[in-house]
């Protein structure tokens, strides 16, 4: 699973991701094989009481593959890192759960997605959420900065999964939680590395 990739291969994968998610930022409808937006959120049993508090244009931008909050609610006051925050829906749900005493940082590779997340953020009243552009696997946070790291449908796209996990562990406080929803392969990998890079999004 952990593929050894040359720097130019990583660049190719990153530019492929940026290209796709520039389109997704405008609206995910029709770009995924599973329900997105409000339909996706309802199918994944996101808390309807929390969804009610978010504008519908925010809900529209959701394209996650699961519900990280189904693994247990966040606690008031938690500091949360969302790796691959996309349109920001999970970060904003997290912000609602942690309350004004907590904070949420959302990171995304795609500048268009960060812009969309910031537009979504402006439609809410949260003062403790920031979205930042991020590439590679090295986090610019101090050790033990967060109570929760969450990620929804993103680790499968990260070339250096092991390194990213080490970084997630480093920035968590002792006892901090990692909550991930993602796609795993059910078939076997038989293709050569170049073919795998070209078919990074399956």
């Amino acid at each position, binding site marked *: *699973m*952990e593929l050894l990739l040359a720097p130019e291969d990583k660049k190719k994968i990153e530019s492929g991701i940026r290209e796709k998610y520039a389109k997704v930022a405008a609206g995910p409808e029709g770009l*995924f*094989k*599973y*329900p997105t937006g409000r339909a*996706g959120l309802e*199918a*994944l049993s996101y808390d309807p009481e929390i969804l009610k508090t978010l504008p519908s244009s925010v809900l529209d931008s959701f394209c*996650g*593959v*699961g*519900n*990280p909050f*189904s*693994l247990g609610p966040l606690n008031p006051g938690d500091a949360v890192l969302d790796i691959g925050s996309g349109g920001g829906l999970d970060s904003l749900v997290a912000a609602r759960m942690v309350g004004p005493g907590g904070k949420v940082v959302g990171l995304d590779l795609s500048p268009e997605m960060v812009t969309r997340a910031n537009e979504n953020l402006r439609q809410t009243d949260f003062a403790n959420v920031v979205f930042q552009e991020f590439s590679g696997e090295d986090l610019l946070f101090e050790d033990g900065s967060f109570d929760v790291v969450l990620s929804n*449908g993103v*680790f*499968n796209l990260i070339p250096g*999964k*092991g390194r990213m*996990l*080490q970084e*997630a*562990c*480093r920035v*968590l*406080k*002792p*006892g*901090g*939680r*990692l*909550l*991930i*929803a*993602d*796609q*795993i*392969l*059910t*078939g076997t990998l038989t293709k050569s590395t170049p073919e795998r890079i070209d078919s990074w999004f*399956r």
Partner: protein
Amino acid sequence: MDFLALMKEAGFGGAEMAGDTGFNSSAVTKGTMFRAKKGIGEKAMSVEDGLKKYREFFEMAYADGALDRKMKHLVALGASLGAGCEP
């Protein structure tokens, strides 16, 4: 190496798959939940290290200073008798 093994190698404890999401992005992938905790006790001190630290503390506390070592032991004896401890 699978994803759970990577999580463990990164320093997470109790890494586990926690069910399917039902959202599959292709015929050969499956939406899956994962959870883990940053271990609390994993890098804790060994028993030997703990005893060593205790001995260091003990030696430091009884080292000759304003009171000499013998006087400190006598004070400790008096205090423990006064408190009803076994000296």
